[in-house]
């Protein structure tokens, strides 16, 4: 008998026996409760809310509060490449919980915020979420990145636990189920905002793009920008790609320069945007630079230096805004942590946690099911980054966007866009198209 014959024979024997037993007795084969999943046969049920997209209803039973504390989970990138955002997100959550506890908690019960580390990786984020759910959290706050959030959302959907994403702007994220929400706008809003601003306010007609192929955030944002800019009548002269972690971009920039653009849209994170801006200036590409909320960091000035000055990006809010709630928030944050939040994820993490706690306060019974309903019912929640209304909007709140100009060592709020201004007529907003 040859080697192959011999082993294929054995493998087949083992496998076939397994299948026989498995197929013969699916009940004992352990399909319940999580053996084989149920997704395949499940048809989408519709929410009674007609204005929102029909989102599948989470089949899980959720967790119930027990003991003297109310458990809330947060999944964040405490380790790994997304650490700058993860750290701010955790701090925001801790600040929110501390403030609520200082006021006596909710119904006399203290809030217990448990942090799960996703290590900037989707599957570890999912493990963290599963761990938190098995610990009995009523809801989960997080993640910053869309790729990790979708994994968390998957687990939470099956268990019926609400998730409030912090900075995940990927548009199709909340289509997963009726338990997924976010406190930020989506790329379907952010891209068009920047496209409108570039075309109408800056008068740009030929824009080149730099997209980070490794980050789903960046590719999604580039897509929505490209679509809207072309719709307005502009031309995308060229798109070049890079991967986060790279340090030299001179090759891509040399190509872009040959195409004579009058603007450069960079949809990646500030860690690469800064060096790209520097190297673009070095390559003689003196054009207006634009980007999304991935730019937002106090390190942008130093990573981009003088080259990034005069650039515009779309943000959720700005530390420098004169609104009283922002000023107050910055004071409280600085008192606790010693310096201003480095990224917008500080405020968004705070908002997401606060929204969760606010909904928990409103929830009739302290369990996940009631919490989902309470979150979905949120109207005009006064977040630091703007008002959040989830009622009638599915999981995506229509929020304002603030375009800020990068000045010399400071961010200058340039123009605020309201949701309706940009999304009017654009296929009923992002909540509709999934």
């Amino acid at each position, binding site marked *: 008998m040859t080697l192959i014959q011999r082993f294929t024979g054995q493998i087949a024997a083992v496998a076939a026996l397994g299948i026989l037993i498995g197929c013969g007795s699916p009940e004992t084969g352990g399909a319940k409760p999580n053996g084989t999943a149920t997704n395949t046969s499940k048809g989408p049920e519709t929410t009674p809310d007609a204005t929102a997209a029909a989102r599948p209803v989470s089949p899980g039973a959720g967790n119930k509060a027990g003991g003297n504390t109310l458990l809330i989970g947060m999944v964040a990138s405490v380790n790994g490449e997304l650490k700058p955002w993860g750290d701010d997100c955790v701090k925001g959550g801790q600040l929110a919980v501390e403030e609520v506890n200082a006021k006596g908690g909710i119904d006399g019960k203290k809030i217990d915020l448990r942090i799960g580390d996703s290590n900037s990786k989707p599957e570890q984020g999912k493990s963290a979420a599963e761990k938190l759910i098995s610990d009995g959290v009523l809801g989960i706050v997080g993640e910053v990145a869309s790729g990790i959030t979708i994994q968390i959302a998957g687990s939470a959907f099956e268990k019926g636990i609400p998730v409030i994403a912090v900075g995940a702007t990927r548009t199709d994220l909340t289509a997963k189920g009726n338990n997924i929400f976010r406190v930020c706008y989506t790329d379907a809003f952010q891209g068009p905002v920047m496209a409108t601003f570039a075309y109408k306010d800056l008068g740009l007609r030929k824009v080149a793009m730099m997209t980070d192929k490794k980050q789903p955030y960046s590719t999604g944002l580039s897509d929505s920008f490209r679509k809207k800019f072309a719709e307005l009548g502009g031309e995308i002269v060229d798109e070049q790609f890079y991967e986060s972690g790279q340090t030299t971009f*001179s090759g891509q920039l040399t190509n872009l320069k040959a195409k004579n653009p009058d603007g450069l849209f960079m949809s990646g994170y500030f860690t690469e945007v800064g*060096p790209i801006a520097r190297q673009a200036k070095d390559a*003689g590409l003196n054009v207006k630079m634009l980007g999304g909320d991935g730019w937002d960091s106090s390190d942008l000035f130093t990573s981009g230096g003088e080259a990034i000055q005069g650039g515009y990006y779309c943000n959720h809010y700005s530390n420098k805004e004169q609104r009283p709630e922002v000023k107050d928030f910055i004071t409280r944050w600085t008192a606790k942590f010693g310096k201003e939040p480095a990224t917008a994820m500080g405020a968004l993490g705070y908002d997401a946690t606060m929204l969760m706690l606010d909904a928990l306060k409103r929830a009739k019974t302290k369990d996940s099911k009631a919490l989902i309903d309470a979150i979905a019912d949120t109207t005009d929640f006064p977040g630091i980054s703007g008002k959040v209304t989830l009622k009638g909007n599915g999981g995506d709140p229509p929020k304002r966007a603030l375009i800020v100009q990068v000045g010399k*060592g400071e961010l200058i709020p340039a123009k605020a866009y309201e949701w309706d201004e940009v999304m009017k007529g654009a296929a009923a907003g992002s909540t509709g198209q999934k």
Partner: protein
Amino acid sequence: MHPSYLIVAGLDFTALPQQLVNGLLLGAIYALIALGYTMVYGVLKLINFAHGEVYMLGAYTALFTSWYFGFLPNLNQYPNSSFWILLIMLAGSMIVCAIIGVLIERFAYRPMRNNSRIASLITAIGVSLLFQYGGALFLPNSPPPSVAEKVNPFGGAFSVPIIPADAKLSEVVKATQPDYEQKKKDLEEYLASTGQEEFSSDPQVVAKRDAKQAAEQSYMDAKRKLETSGVKVTIQRGQLTMLLTAIVLMLGLRYLVLKTPAGRAMRAVSLDFDSAALMGINVDRVITWTFVIGSAMAGAGAMMTATFLGTPLTTQYGVQPGVKAFVAAVLGGIGNIPGAALGGILMGVAENLVVWIGFSQYRDAIAFVVLIFILLYRPGGLLGSAKVEKV
């Protein structure tokens, strides 16, 4: 006019000289890091996976040194930089990296020397992870990259023209300039007099803004057309300094290895570890020196990339350059010092050519594609010799 005859089959040959120069500059850095891999491999037959982390710590050293000289982030006033500060930063990074390299060797690799190579390799991976994640506990999160242009006294660039720019186009630039400046002044005066914001939707402002933008479009367009009508190669002074330093360091290394007793001992150990020991060479000392030199080269590369390219630092800073440099070392023939230099430069150029032909998304893959093809035809790398390993 744009020399359109230079666009053949969708490829813009006007950009080719610049791309080759870009590749050379990038390759010089890969080469510096690759030297460390190749030297350690030469004497120990160990892939030093922690080399990328040594590089990362070198970049942090450069950052802290620049802070010491007053180049702190987010200042309004910076001290004047000089060549000497850069030199001290370079020396500082090289020294710190050398020390770290020696410590890693002493505490992680030396105890493993008599064990299987794969066990040393796993230890190396462990050390690499320890630095990445342990470093993240103490080192600042993505801090500013040493305020690059402030600390860099070699501002500006110089250009080498290959095809001169079209003189006629400069007339167009001159013709459109006054109109643009007039419109710009109009808008600014109006905004100042009425106290409006630049992007307000007041019809007057919008009209003036649109007028300014139209004039700006034609002015800038003329300017850019002028610029691209010729073919030239632009090199930043800082990057040129980087290239020259790399060349000096590599020549110095070559001298050290070929002409000095220490170098001879190193070559002997690399050729045959046991016989070298029998011939009275202090193998431990040679290995220590190998780590000193290899790590110092990585330190130099790190200091220069941190200063002249300005990427924010994280503790993952060394991962990607580390992998690329390792590939470069294998490409040139691992254990072979000129091979590492050649491999580095070849990879830098290959990456830029891939970008040039329009596949920038596959830039990271090309390193490996080139590697696989070269290894299939020369299994020992470009300059290396493929010999059967005896186990």
